[in-house]
């Protein structure tokens, strides 16, 4: 991988033969030196350290400064390895479609063609991939102008901290607030946008999320912005305008938060229409419209924890440009016996999807072939073939990439910069390892293990739930 750092970090040796003969190909991974990676087990245990090697024979070799010598873990009870400082993937072209597979894999790319046997597409890691059609679950077409502006956090770098720099700290993909303070960043928000993040808390908390603000390291009523006030069970929105003061635009209730301590928050901002929506766990809580028109003038956002005591954790933050009206990616699986094409006018066309290319979709519905221009389609869901019983594959791993994709494959080799394996969906795969933020093991069971260390580290609650 590019980014192969001057200070070699991880070495992997190839160990792959029927006789399990080690080839010992040890090379360097390209993640930034000095970062603290994290391995997590299915029982919630976790160890920071450094991945040195992965081999089919020896397992995962992990080193730490306080370990006399590196240890080899077999993969049977590994949940995942998180890599600090993973770089966002570089795409030659902006993706137009989100492709999801029945096994949980998902990629952002561009559709080339689909017929009754196969689907062909391009992605950032391969210009042309082909997969059997029956492994495909859905295609969701991205709104025009879709662009991921930020995905993280992976570090404090690039963020502005308020007067108390200790109020927020970064650890293992999570911003953690244990006191009153602010952290913000300029994302270059220009037009409409979507802001998504996971929010976790303990006790009674109060979090202000100013959006489209220029005050990134302070709470400032002089900056033109919108401020979401989120507490356990309630959200309200204020418009803040320099010289005009503050106007409360209304409150929404989130009773589900009373019985939880973790939710997924999504804020959608339609700038031309001055409309803002807040979703909790994909459910719309409240829609606001500023009748005075969109008055915020900043391009960043911030998190301001208002109380001392309760712990607030923000993770899986994703900020993306949005066209202001398309539904965001919806993973449309169909349980029915027919494929389904979803149109922009909200019509749905059931039938047998015969083909797709970059311009049209052909679906046989009620006995007739319908040809629909791709531009009229939001997404396509395909029928799920009958599941076949599977044997356990301890070396089937899933790589999660910074920038929104997750691909599983039978691990073959990691030579230091390039990870290779064989995907059951589309055959041989090769990845530049610097883009991998998480390598997941024991797919299925490890899904239940939080990828941000939600609670397992607490000595008083040493479980991951």
């Amino acid at each position: 991988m590019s980014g192969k750092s001057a200070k070699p970090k991880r070495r992997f040796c190839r160990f792959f033969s029927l006789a399990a003969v080690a080839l010992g190909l040890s090379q360097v991974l390209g993640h930034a030196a000095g970062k603290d990676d994290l391995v997590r087990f299915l029982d919630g245990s976790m160890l920071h350290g450094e991945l040195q090697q992965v081999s089919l024979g020896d397992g995962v070799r992990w080193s730490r400064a306080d370990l006399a010598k590196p240890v080899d873990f077999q993969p049977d009870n590994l949940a995942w390895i998180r890599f600090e400082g993973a770089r966002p993937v570089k795409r030659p072209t902006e993706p137009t479609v989100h492709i999801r597979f029945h096994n949980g894999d998902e990629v952002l790319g561009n559709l080339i063609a689909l017929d009754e046997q196969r689907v062909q597409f391009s992605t950032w890691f391969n210009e042309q991939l082909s997969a059997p059609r029956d492994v495909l679950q859905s295609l969701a077409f991205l709104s025009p102008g879709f662009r991921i502006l930020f995905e993280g956090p992976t570090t404090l770098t690039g963020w502005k901290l308020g007067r108390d720099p200790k109020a927020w700290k970064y650890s293992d993909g999570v911003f953690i607030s244990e006191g009153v303070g602010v952290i913000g960043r300029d994302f270059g928000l220009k037009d409409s946008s979507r802001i998504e993040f996971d929010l976790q808390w303990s006790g009674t908390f109060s979090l202000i999320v100013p959006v489209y603000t220029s005050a990134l390291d302070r709470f400032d009523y002089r900056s033109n912005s919108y401020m979401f006030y989120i507490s356990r069970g309630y959200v309200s929105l204020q418009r803040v305008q320099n010289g005009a003061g503050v106007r409360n635009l209304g409150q929404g209730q989130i009773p589900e938060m009373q019985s939880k301590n973790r939710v997924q928050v999504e804020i959608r901002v339609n700038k031309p229409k001055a409309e803002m929506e807040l979703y909790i766990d994909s459910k719309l809580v409240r829609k606001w419209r500023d009748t005075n028109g969109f008055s915020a003038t900043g391009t960043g956002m911030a998190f301001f924890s208002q109380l001392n005591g309760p712990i607030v954790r923000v993770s899986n933050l994703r900020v993306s440009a949005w066209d202001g009206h398309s539904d965001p990616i919806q993973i449309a699986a169909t349980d029915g016996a027919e494929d389904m094409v979803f149109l922009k006018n909200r019509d749905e066309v059931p039938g047998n999807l015969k083909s797709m290319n970059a311009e049209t979709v052909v679906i046989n519905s009620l006995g007739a072939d319908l040809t629909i221009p791709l531009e009229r389609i939001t997404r396509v869901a395909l029928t799920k073939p009958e599941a076949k019983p599977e044997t356990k594959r301890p070396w089937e791993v899933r790589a999660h990439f910074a920038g929104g994709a997750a691909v599983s494959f039978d691990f073959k080799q990691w030579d230091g910069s390039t990870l290779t394996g064989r995907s059951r969906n589309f055959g041989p795969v090769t990845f530049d390892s610097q883009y991998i933020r998480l390598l997941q093991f024991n797919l299925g069971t490890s899904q239940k293990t939080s990828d941000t260390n939600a609670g397992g580290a607490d000595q008083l609650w040493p479980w991951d739930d």
Partner: protein
Amino acid sequence: MIDKIKNLPLGKEQGRGGSPSRPRLRSESPLGQVAAATATWCAALCGSLGVFKNSCGRLGQPSLPSPWRSFAVFIFAAVTAIGQAGENKSTLHFKNGDWLRGALAGYDPAVGVTWRHADATAPLQFNTGQLTGITLDGTAVGQLAAGNLCEVQLVNGDHFRGNLAGATAEHFLFDTWHAGRMQLLRSAVRKIAPLPKGLKTIFQGPESDDGWTHGKINNEAIGESGNWRYHNGGFHAKAAASIARDLGLPDSSHISFDLEWSGAMHLAFALYTDTLQPISLSTKENEPDFSGFYSIQVNSYSVNLLPVKKHTPLTYLGQATVPSFRKKTKSRLEFFANKAQRLIAVAIDGKVIRKWFDAKGFTGEGTGIRIVHQGRGAVRVSNLRVEEWDGRFKGPPTHPIGAKDDLVKLINNDRMQGRVNGIEGGKLNVTTVEGGFPVPLDRVKQIEPATSKTAADMPLEHRMRAHFSDGSRLTFKLNRWATDGVEAQSPSFGNATFKSGSIIRLEFQPPKK
């Protein structure tokens, strides 16, 4: 409230919610079933608890006396070799919050901790620089032969129980269940408090949640309810949870336990209850019939006592503020109860903070306890000991550190200053300026020897603190941990070898006190 509290600001809680249709009792372990554990000690202990219920779901009195302290010999049958019990259930804790399950395979100062992990092909060897501690699974409480049982406190805050066996010019001698005969440097011993003979220890643990009843909390205001979970000698809770057990509380009882918490803390302890399910206080009249009990409500800044009885208005008996809770994350709590005196008292970290006398009579009508976590923060309850109480409060030592003479305090408040020379035939030999006196040990309230502030000091880099499964604590330099014993050394007791299954937690480089 107690039991189920509305989510209101601290100090203004009112009970609410609760399901009138919920079952009164879950299936309880009948006598003997509790002793599912194979260990001899556990069977003996649990058998002594006599947990049973009658057809109404009320709890009865224990059917068997508690015999464990009367055994004439050391019995320590359940100490399983490390690496067998506790495989992958012990936990290694690191300074950065990392933790790793596994089993302690050994310790040597030269190589550090040797740790076994089921998925690792070879044992892991950690130096101790980044370790904060080890919690050990598969531990057991041993038993001690009848003798001159005393509570011993050292100048560094360590404490344990042992039979006072004698004294030499330099040492006090104690027989302990975890290390046999121990010689304690006289100047390192802060206090020796003889325990009244004949008082029964009713419960010591927990060793599991066997015999305990997990209660169902139905109160939306509290939030998501969950269960207490047993882990490494303690009960943990994060979401609102209730756990209860009929311990056969005697008319005069002493309940003590370690409480740890993170974040906000709000717990309610029901004493002398006959109901193993939580009671919603604001709707208590709609709850299935229950007999009166006391609710001791402990939160981050105070302790409150509330008698709870059906058809009787709820009136708190008064609150004791505990400012020290704000600066701590753990404390030793003690509850004292005496039916005849209509007394409930609470001590925190050895100091009685409040005594309540219930003018309307003793409300508690059952013999069980219930612990309800209100769902704020995470908590752990461990080293729970329930025993008969002789009605006397122990006092903190008052003899100045650095004093040259021993001080013997008698139960009639007399004092003798001089030197404790030994014990013979149940009598303490005390020499004062007026001569030598044999004092029956049962007349001694406590001995406060001549001490030196630095007698137990040891360098931080060597310091390790062991917490034993009976609640004892000792600080030492660990020389070796192996299946055949834990070899340790300290200025207080010299060299000692502890049974490896007796230690439930090890702290690395703990603070001095």
